[in-house]
C-alpha cells in the first residue's frame, strides 16, 4: 500500500497510527538482526509519536505524513537520539538539536522508527564500511545493499518502514535503491536543507528519499523541501507539489539516451533492461533522443578529488576534544588529536582524508582540485546542452547489480568505479530518480535512473510512476527465510 492509500486508511480509521507503528516495530525486531539496516531503533519515541499522530488524525488535522512510519539515515541529526554516522568517532554522539528535515518530519507528525545504517560518514557504495557491521541486501543476504544509504534502502525494501530519508553525495540514495529494488529520489541541489546533516562533501551533499514508489518519494519530498535560513544553498526555485505529474500522459516527453552510459563496463543485462525501459516509454508515446556527455569519462576522477578535498576539511572538526571519540592514550595535545582520529575513523574515511589533503596540498592543487572544478563546469554545460533537446535523460543507475559481500573489500578503486553512472548528476546538481526496471539471472534488481532539469522533479516523478504502474515487481523475501 502506498502512502496516499495508507493516508486514506488512517483518516478513515481503518487502521490506527499506533497499530501501524506496532506492525513495523514487530517486523524490525524480527528481521533487523539479519539485515542490520537500523543502528538505533526508537521504539518508545515511536509509540509516543504514533499516539500523538492519532490525536491529530482524530481532530481531522492530518497532513500527508501524519502517522506514517519512517526512518532516518544516521548522519542526520535527531534531537535526543544518537546520530553516529556509523562511525566509532560518533558512537556516543547525541545531537542537541534536530536537523531541519527531522524537524519537518516531526511537524508533520510522522513516526520516526529509528536511525539507519550506512557507510561511515557516507563514504562508500556498499554500506559495508560501518562501525556497526554491514547492511545485507533483502533480496539475498549474501549481497551488499549498496551505499552509502544502504540501511535506508534495505529498511524500505524489507518493509521495516514506509519511507526513509537518505543522503546522496555521489549516488548514495540511487545506488542502494537500485541494489535493494526500491525507488530513490535525489532532489536538485538546493531543494532540501542540509542544516543538521553531518557534512561529507558540501558542494554535492543533498538529502532525499528512499521509498517503495515514486509517489511515496514525492509525498515525503513535499514534506521536507524548502528554503531554510540555516542553509544558504537552499533555493526558492524549489516549488513543491511533487506529485503534480502523477497519472498525466507521458506522450511527447523527450527522453535523452546518452551513449556514454551504454559503453564498456556496463553489464549486458543492465544495458538490455534499460533499453527495454526506453522502448516501454517509446510505446507510451515518448520520443527517444540519442545524445552525448563527452566529458563523462572524467566525472569519477573529478568527483573523488572534490568530495575528498571537502571531506578532509569537513572532518577536521573531529578532534576528540569538543565531541566524538577521545583516545585515552596520550597527555600531549597534538597526539591526543592524532590518536583520537586514528582510532576513531575507519580505513575508508582515512583514505578519503589523505586523498583530500593530497589534492589540496601545495604543488598539486592546480593539477587536481582546480582541474576537477573545471571538469565539473564542463559536465554541467554538457547536461545543459542535452536539456535544450530533451526533457529527461535515461541511464542505468549502476553498471552492475549488487555485488557479493566482500567483493570490493580490499579494492577501493574497484568500489569507486561502481559510481560511474551516478556521480555526474551530483556534479551538475540535477534531480534524479532510480527505480527497478528488471532482475538479473540471480534475481537481483536492476535500477534505471531518470535525470531531470534543475528543479523539475515533477517530470521525473511522473515518468517514473508511469513505468512503475506497468512493471511487475518481485518482492524481497530472502531475509524472511
Amino acid at each position, binding site marked *: 500500500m502506498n502512502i496516499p492509500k495508507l493516508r486514506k486508511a488512517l483518516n478513515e480509521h481503518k487502521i490506527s497510527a499506533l497499530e501501524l507503528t506496532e506492525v513495523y516495530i514487530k517486523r524490525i525486531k524480527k528481521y533487523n538482526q539479519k539485515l542490520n539496516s537500523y543502528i538505533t531503533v526508537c521504539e518508545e519515541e515511536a509509540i509516543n509519536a504514533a499516539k500523538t499522530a492519532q490525536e491529530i488524525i482524530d481532530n481531522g488535522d492530518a497532513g500527508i505524513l501524519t502517522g506514517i512510519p519512517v526512518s532516518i539515515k544516521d548522519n542526520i541529526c535527531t534531537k535526543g537520539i544518537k546520530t553516529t554516522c556509523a562511525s566509532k568517532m560518533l558512537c556516543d554522539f547525541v545531537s542537541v538539536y534536530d536537523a531541519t528535515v527531522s524537524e519537518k518530519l516531526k511537524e508533520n507528525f510522522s513516526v520516526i522508527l529509528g536511525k539507519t545504517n550506512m557507510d561511515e560518514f557516507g563514504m562508500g557504495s556498499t554500506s559495508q564500511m560501518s562501525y556497526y557491521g554491514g547492511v545485507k541486501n533483502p533480496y539475498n543476504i549474501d549481497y551488499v545493499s549498496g551505499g552509502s544509504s544502504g540501511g535506508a534502502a534495505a529498511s524500505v525494501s524489507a518493509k521495516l518502514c514506509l519511507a526513509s530519508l537518505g543522503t546522496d553525495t555521489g549516488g548514495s540514495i540511487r545506488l542502494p535503491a537500485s541494489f535493494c529494488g526500491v525507488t530513490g529520489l535525489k532532489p536538485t541541489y538546493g531543494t532540501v536543507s542540509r542544516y543538521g546533516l553531518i557534512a561529507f562533501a558540501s558542494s554535492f551533499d543533498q538529502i532525499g528519499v528512499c521509498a517503495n514508489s515514486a509517489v511515496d518519494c514525492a509525498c515525503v519530498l513535499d514534506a521536507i523541501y524548502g528554503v531554510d535560513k540555516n542553509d*544558504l544553498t537552499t533555493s526558492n526555485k524549489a516549488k513543491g507539489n511533487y506529485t503534480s505529474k502523477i497519472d498525466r500522459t507521458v506522450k511527447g516527453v523527450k527522453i535523452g539516451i546518452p551513449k556514454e552510459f551504454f559503453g564498456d563496463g556496463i553489464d549486458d543485462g543492465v544495458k538490455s533492461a534499460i533499453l527495454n525501459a526506453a522502448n516501454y516509454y517509446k510505446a507510451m508515446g515518448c520520443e527517444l533522443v540519442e545524445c552525448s556527455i563527452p566529458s563523462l*569519462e*572524467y566525472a569519477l576522477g573529478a568527483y573523488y578529488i572534490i568530495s575528498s578535498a571537502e571531506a578532509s576539511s569537513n572532518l577536521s572538526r573531529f578532534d576528540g576534544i569538543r565531541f566524538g571519540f577521545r583516545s585515552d592514550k596520550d597527555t600531549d595535545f597534538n597526539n591526543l588529536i592524532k590518536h583520537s582520529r586514528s582510532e576513531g575513523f575507519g580505513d575508508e574515511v582515512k583514505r578519503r582524508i589523505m586523498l583530500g589533503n593530497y589534492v589540496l596540498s601545495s604543488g598539486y592543487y592546480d593539477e587536481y582540485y582546480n582541474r576537477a572544478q573545471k571538469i565539473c563546469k564542463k559536465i554541467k554545460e554538457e547536461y545543459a546542452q542535452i536539456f535544450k533537446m530533451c526533457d529527461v535523460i535515461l541511464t542505468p543507475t549502476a553498471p552492475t547489480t549488487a555485488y557479493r559481500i566482500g567483493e570490493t573489500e580490499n579494492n577501493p578503486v574497484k568500489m569507486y568505479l561502481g559510481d560511474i553512472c551516478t556521480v555526474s548528476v551530483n556534479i551538475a546538481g540535477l534531480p534524479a530518480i532510480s527505480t527497478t526496471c528488471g532482475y538479473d539471472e540471480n534475481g537481483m534488481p536492476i535500477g534505471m535512473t531518470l535525470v531531470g532539469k534543475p528543479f523539475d522533479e515533477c517530470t521525473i516523478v511522473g515518468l517514473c510512476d508511469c513505468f512503475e504502474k506497468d512493471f511487475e515487481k518481485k518482492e524481497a523475501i530472502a531475509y524472511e527465510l
Partner: protein
Amino acid sequence: MADKNLIYKLAQLSKLEFKEQELKKISEDMDAIIKFADKVKEFDTKAFGEKYDAVEYGSLRDDECIGGLTNKEATLNIQEKNNGCFAVPKVI
C-alpha cells in the same frame, strides 16, 4: 607504491597516524587512488579561466544575533570536561 615520505606528510596534514604494519596497505591504496585520480590530467583545460566555483549560493541571511547552545548542551558530548569547559592536556 606511494612514497613513504609522501604518506608521512599526508598523515601529518590529516592528523592521522599509521602503525608500521598499516603503512604498506595505506601506501598501496594511496598509490592506486592517486593513479585513478590522475585521469583528470588528460582533460584539456585551455577553454577555462583560472577559477571556477561549482556552487551557486542563495541570498545571505541577515547578520542578526540568534540563540546558541547552552553550556550544558555544548558540553553534552565531550568525554572530558572541567568546570563546564573542554578539557585538554596541558600545552604550556
